C-alpha cells in the first residue's frame, strides 16, 4: 500500500483562497465576486490586494451570477464565491441560462459543500450540488480532496476556458497530495494499485478511501484507489481500465447517491462494463447538525463503511464468478 502522509490538516477552502490570490497576481483579467462570505470563503486576501477587481455583491447570489456572466463579456475571468448551497440550488436558473447555456467563462467556487459543513445543519448542507451542476451541458465539475489539490484545481480552472463548478469544504482535513502535483481537469489520479477491488473516491472521502485501503490490506486484499477529482468530464478510460483488472467497484463521496460521482460511474459501467458496484454516499435523506466527524460517522461516510462496501462488492464478484462457472 502506497503511504500518504498528512503534512498537516488544513481546510480545502484555504487552498482556494491562496490560489485566487496567486491568480490575481498573475493575470489582470482575474476578478472575484462574493456574496457576503469573504472571510468564510478565504477571499479576503484577494479582496485586499485587488480592491478594483473584487466585487462584494451582498447576500444577492442571483445578481452575483449574472454580474459574473456579464464580466466575461469584456474578457474577464470571474470567480464567484459563496457556500455550495447558495452557489447552486439557489441560483440554478441563473447558472443555467446566463452561464452554462451561454457558455460563459465563469468559475463557480463553492465552499462548505456537503455534510461536513456541520453545525449549521441541513438548511445549509447541500448534498445535491454536484448532481445539479453535472446535468448542465458545458459545465465542468471538480471536487478536490485536500488543500494542495484545491489550490492546484483553482489554478487549473483559470486556464480552462468555459464554465466550471469547483466545490470544496469547511473543515480542516488531512493534506496529503504533493504540493507540486500537476492538476489536469478530467484526469483521474491513481493513488494506489491493487488487484481485488477499485475504490473511486472524491473530495473529503479520498483520505478515508486511503485509510480503507490499509484496513483491506490487513485483511489480505489489495485495492486500486482512484481519486476522481473531476466528476465531469469523467475519465472513462481510467475507470474501465482499473475495473478490467479488479472486477468490482466501490464509490465514496460526500454527496447524495442520486446525481453524485457514483451515479456517473454507475451510468458508465451499465453501458460499457457492468461489474458489481457498491456506493458509499448519502441515500435520499437530508443532513443534520453536528460536528463534521460525527456526521461523517453517522451518515456512513468513513473508512469503515468503505471497507464494508468493498467486502460486499468483492463478495458479489465471487458470487457472479461462481454462478458463471456453472
Amino acid at each position, binding site marked *: 500500500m502506497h503511504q500518504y502522509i498528512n503534512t498537516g490538516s488544513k481546510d480545502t477552502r484555504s487552498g482556494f483562497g491562496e490560489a485566487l490570490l496567486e491568480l490575481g497576481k498573475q493575470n489582470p483579467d482575474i476578478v472575484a465576486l462574493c456574496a457576503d462570505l469573504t472571510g468564510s470563503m478565504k477571499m479576503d486576501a484577494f479582496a485586499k490586494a485587488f480592491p478594483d477587481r473584487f466585487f462584494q455583491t451582498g447576500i444577492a447570489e442571483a*445578481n452575483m451570477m449574472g454580474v459574473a*456572466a*456579464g464580466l466575461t*463579456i*469584456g474578457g*474577464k475571468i470571474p470567480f464567484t464565491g459563496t457556500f455550495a448551497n447558495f452557489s447552486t440550488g439557489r441560483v440554478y*436558473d441563473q447558472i443555467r441560462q*446566463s452561464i452554462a447555456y*451561454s457558455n460563459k467563462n465563469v468559475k463557480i467556487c463553492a465552499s462548505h459543500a456537503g455534510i461536513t459543513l456541520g453545525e449549521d445543519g441541513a438548511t445549509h448542507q447541500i448534498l445535491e450540488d454536484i448532481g445539479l451542476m453535472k446535468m448542465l451541458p458545458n459545465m465542468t465539475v471538480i471536487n478536490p480532496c485536500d488543500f494542495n489539490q484545491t489550490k492546484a484545481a483553482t489554478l487549473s480552472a483559470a486556464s480552462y476556458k468555459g464554465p466550471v463548478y469547483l466545490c470544496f469544504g469547511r473543515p480542516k482535513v488531512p493534506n496529503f497530495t504533493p504540493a507540486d502535483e500537476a492538476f489536469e481537469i478530467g484526469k483521474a489520479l491513481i493513488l494506489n494499485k491493487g488487484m481485488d477491488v477499485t475504490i473511486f473516491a472524491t473530495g473529503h472521502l479520498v483520505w478515508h478511501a486511503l485509510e480503507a485501503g490499509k484496513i483491506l490490506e490487513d485483511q489480505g486484499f489489495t485495492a486500486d484507489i482512484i481519486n476522481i477529482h473531476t466528476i465531469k468530464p469523467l475519465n472513462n478510460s481510467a475507470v474501465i481500465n482499473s475495473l478490467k483488472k479488479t472486477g468490482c467497484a466501490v464509490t465514496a463521496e460526500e454527496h447524495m447517491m442520486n446525481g453524485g460521482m457514483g451515479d456517473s460511474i454507475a451510468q458508465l459501467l451499465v453501458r460499457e462494463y457492468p461489474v458489481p458496484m457498491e456506493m458509499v454516499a448519502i441515500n435520499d435523506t437530508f443532513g443534520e447538525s453536528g460536528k463534521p466527524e460525527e456526521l461523517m460517522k453517522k451518515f456512513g461516510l468513513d473508512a469503515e463503511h468503505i471497507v464494508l462496501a468493498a467486502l460486499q462488492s468483492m463478495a458479489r464478484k465471487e458470487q457472479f464468478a461462481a454462478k458463471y462457472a456453472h
Partner: protein
Amino acid sequence: MPSVSALQKLSSQVRRDIIRMTNSAASGHPGGALGTADFLVTLYFEFMKPDPKGFTTDGIGEDLFFLSNGHLSAVWYSVLARYGYFEIKELGTFRKLSSRLQGHPSIHEGLPGIRIASGSLGQGLSVACGAALAKRLNKDNHLVYCLVGDGELDEGQNWEALMFAPDRKIDNLVAIVDYNGQQIDGPVKNVLDLGNLKAKLESFGWRVLEMYGNDIQDIIKMLRIAISELHKGKPVIIMMTTHMGFGVDFMLDNHEWHGVPPNDEQAKQALSQLPETIGDY
C-alpha cells in the same frame, strides 16, 4: 446620421418583419416587440452604431445592448438583420428547426449580435452590470444598454441589480424599462402593482428619466439626455412608456397579444397597416 423619417421607415419595416416572423412560426411574442420597435431601431441606427461585420462577444471598443426580456426576440432579430449582422432572409427561419433565431435569444447557435442568452426573466440587468464593470476595468469608455420589461420587474433579481448598480457607481449603464403596463395575465397594475416605480428607482439611487418610446423624436432627445447624465457617479434608468402592439390597431394596448402570433387573416390585416418601406425579407 439617418433622418427621423428614415428611422420611422425602418421601424415600419421592422414591424412588418415581426408580424411576418411570428405568423410564419405560428408562435412568438408580437405585442412587446411591436411596442419597442421604434426604440430599438433608434438605439442601433442613431446611437450605438456598432460594427456588424467585426462582431465579437467581448464587444471591446463598442456599445453593448442586452435584451433582458428575451421574448422580444423578434424585434431584436429584425433590427440586427436590418443593421447588417446577418442576411434578412434568415428572419424567415425564426423559431423553426435548426435556426440560429431561437425562440429566445441564444448564443448557442452562433448568431452574431447576441452576447448572452435571455428569456428566463430577471437576469439581464445583472449581466449588463457585469459587462459595464468589465468596460470600466478595460478603460473602455463605451456604454452598456439594457432593456427590461415592466412585468419583468416582478422578478427579485432585478431588485438585487437595481441596488447593486448605484452602490457600485456603475455610471456607464443605461437601463430602459419597457413601461407598457401589460404582462401575460393582464395589466401590470392587476398582476403585481409596481406602485410608484419612479420613486422606487430614485430611492435606489438611479438617475431616472422618462420618455415616450413610440415617438422617435422623443427617443432621440431623451437618449441624448441619458448619455449626458452618464459618468456622473450614477446609473441611468429610463421609464419608457410604450404601447403594446403599437402600429396594429387590433393589437394596441391589449395584453392578449403578449405571446400570441397573428393567424394568416390577422397578419394580412396587420400588414395592411404597416407600409413596406425598404423591402420585406
